[in-house]
């Protein structure tokens, strides 16, 4: 077993967006550094996000820990799926961590977010714990949706899932933004969809209404190059997804660089909050796994391609290199974080595999909210089941 070489004192790790607070300052580490990031292509915008950004040591460690947690969580889910402990759909997010972490770094927990089915990472950044996420994947009572939802239907405060129907989450996101505007609370809604979903008609209906009513929504297209097994070139007449909003300004962002994503999201959030209406971001990212666990992911792309992205553009490696080369952290420190993350995931997996399944009494519950108890027909006329809210 690996033993940490030194113990950090006063470390507090909060659940969810794991903030690392180290009271022990390392006098020999740089506290913050400026980084040059890729310039974003813009559409119908006079200026784009900044290209020079500042990242502090604490921010860096937090991003690193969060991305590493997400990565390990997804890999553990892969393992459990192959052991048939997770069943049904499982769409893994590894490779795309920078998107979720960068977006969350630019908004507040009081803002709102909705995405499609590749949602485990977002559930985590929005406040779900790894334990509850994994228990939901294994369908146990300790799951974030008590085992009722599964991989694609996880919810927490100001996070509206986890949606199984491709593209349906986009009007929902605009509706959340409408509620923000209606209530006048200067919150906004981040509404994500993929390159495959970008061709859905309801998304264009939503662009129209969001722009018409100046809803505070950030549309984000996570373009990972493939809609299931169909590459973007084979699916879209125009692969400039950031321009598809036509009358909505757009930004194309390097989705593998967490700082790029963060900066662009900050830019977009400022735009929205100033009342100018919706804005569109395309995050160019990549998924290492196939579309889902039933897709090996190599029939429509080459292993070389996957390997190349892993070696050249992996978001965690990029951040790690940045921090090490700017003397913002030590190798041991980052290894320490890795170990802790692995332990956290192991514990969560342990919980997820040993927690009991939901009780049968729960079968018919939660059909309605705030409703007096009702009777639900079972599989046969004599089976009368009880449902409470």
């Amino acid at each position: 077993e690996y033993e940490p070489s030194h113990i950090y004192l006063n470390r507090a790790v909060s659940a969810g967006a794991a903030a690392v607070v180290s009271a022990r300052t390392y006098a020999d580490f740089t506290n913050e550094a400026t980084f040059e990031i890729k310039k974003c292509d813009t559409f119908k915008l006079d200026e784009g996000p900044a290209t020079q950004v500042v990242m502090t040591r604490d921010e860096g460690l937090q991003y690193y820990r969060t991305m590493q947690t997400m990565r390990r969580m997804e890999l553990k889910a892969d393992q459990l799926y192959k052991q048939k402990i997770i069943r049904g759909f499982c769409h893994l997010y590894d490779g795309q961590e920078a998107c979720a972490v960068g977006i969350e770094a630019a908004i507040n927990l009081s803002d709102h977010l909705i995405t499609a089915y590749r949602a485990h990472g977002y559930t985590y950044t929005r406040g779900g714990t790894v334990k509850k996420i994994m228990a939901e994947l294994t369908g146990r009572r300790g799951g974030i949706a008590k085992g009722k939802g599964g991989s694609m239907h996880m919810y927490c405060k100001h996070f509206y899932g986890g949606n199984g129907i491709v593209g349906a989450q986009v009007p929902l996101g605009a509706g959340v933004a409408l509620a923000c505007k209606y209530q006048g609370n200067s919150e906004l809604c981040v509404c994500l969809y993929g390159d495959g979903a970008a061709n859905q008609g309801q998304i264009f209906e939503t662009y129209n209404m969001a722009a018409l009513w100046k809803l505070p929504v950030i549309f984000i297209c996570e373009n990972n190059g493939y809609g299931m097994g169909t590459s973007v070139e084979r699916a879209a007449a125009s692969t400039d997804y950031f321009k598809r909003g036509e009358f909505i300004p757009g930004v194309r962002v390097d989705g593998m660089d967490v700082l790029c994503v963060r900066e662009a999201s900050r830019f977009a959030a400022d735009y929205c909050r100033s009342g100018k209406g919706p804005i569109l971001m395309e995050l160019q990212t990549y998924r290492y796994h196939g579309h889902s666990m039933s897709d090996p992911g190599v029939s429509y792309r080459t292993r070389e391609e996957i390997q190349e992205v892993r070696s050249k553009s992996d978001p965690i490696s990029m951040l790690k290199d940045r921090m090490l080369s700017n003397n913002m952290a030590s190798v041991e420190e980052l290894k320490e974080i890795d170990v802790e993350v692995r332990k956290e995931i192991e514990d969560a997996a342990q919980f997820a595999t040993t927690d009991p399944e939901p009780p049968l009494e729960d079968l018919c519950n939660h059909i309605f909210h705030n409703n007096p108890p009702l009777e639900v027909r079972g599989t046969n006329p004599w089976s009368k089941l009880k449902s409470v809210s």
Partner: protein
Amino acid sequence: MLPYSGSVSLVSSFLFPPLQFVPPPNRSDWLCVVTPSVRRVTRSSDWSKSRRFPTGLAHSPAEDSLKMAASLRCFLRSGKKAVSALGQREFHRSAPAAAQVTVRDALNQAMDEELERDERVFLLGEEVAQYDGAYKVSRGLWKKYGDKRIIDTPISEMGFAGIAVGAAMAGLRPICEFMTFNFSMQAIDQVINSAAKTCYMSAGLQAVPIVFRGPNGASAGVAAQHSQCFAAWYAHCPGLKVVSPWNSEDAKGLLKSSIRDDNPVVFLENELLYGVPFEMSEEAQSKDFTIPIGKAKVERAGSHITLVSHSRYVGHCLDAAAVLAKEGIECELKLSRSPLPVVVLQVINLRTIRPMDVESIEASVMKTNHLVTVEGGWPQFGVGAEICARIMEGSAFNYLDSPVTRVTGVDIPMPYAKILEDHSLPQIKDIIFSVKKTLNV
């Protein structure tokens, strides 16, 4: 058989108040209504316009039996005049400030009151704001509440239904209007997958307090794509409540309950009923008048057979009941030696399709032993089919003296030509025929 000439020009004039049978003493809750003499009415739906025709049995059984006894005594002693006078007096005493309100106005009132009561309620749909509503149901609301709360949408059902659901998830209480439910098919994924299932999928974390409303079913001459009834489609899905009002009281009370409900409600109106005025009691006109979702109402007491219906066809059932009652009388007068039995129908207005009040139907069937369901939708997998299945599975099956009969729309897309359209929907004669066949008279 009565000479019968189509559904529109039914003459239901009562020459004499009919003497109904005297029920056994312990069953006062299904006393027959003594119909006092009324003016000649010329349209089948006009029965409700008659101010002397009681509008339903909201009274207590004790009150009913007192009335009945009094009417009978009067009738026996002094004939029709006394009975009608008594009926008139009773009616006015029990409903002092009743008013004639169209279904459209009742819906308008309901929305107005709920918009006023709760800041979070808002209405969106096509033409709901500046056009005053495609069918004028939301007349005046935009003027009163403005752009923020009454929102005109572009023609994007899937988009705006999704937006409405999202707004509901984030804490508002939207009323999403579909110009007709035929267009809701464009958005049905949002209604079912985003609205209905979310509370369950999130184990109660995420509620969706939304109302989808609009006209449902056949209109007049609008042909196949604009005439479908969606009661069965939506009522199939757990997680939704499906409501189908008939008269103005139903419309107002149920819409208010639907808006106040924290769950997705599909509210099926009927375009042909919008302009029809119904009596609304003073109580019904008050701002806090609600009707609980999930409870059916017995619109007319009866003893021989139960008719279950929803929406527009409740009116048809009541007309059929009136005809059958009258027919019994005429026969009685003509063949004074052996009067044909008076067929007295109990008419149940479902009000809510899901959750269906099967208990009321069962209780009625256990008394009448016969059941006919009447609906405008297609027969296969419809509301009537569900009622049949439930009656068979429940305790009322043993009380049936004949199989349940379904009266439904014809199993075809709706044609355009008037004669064809008239014959593709249940007419009063079809109901009467089915009742007689079921009773074997």
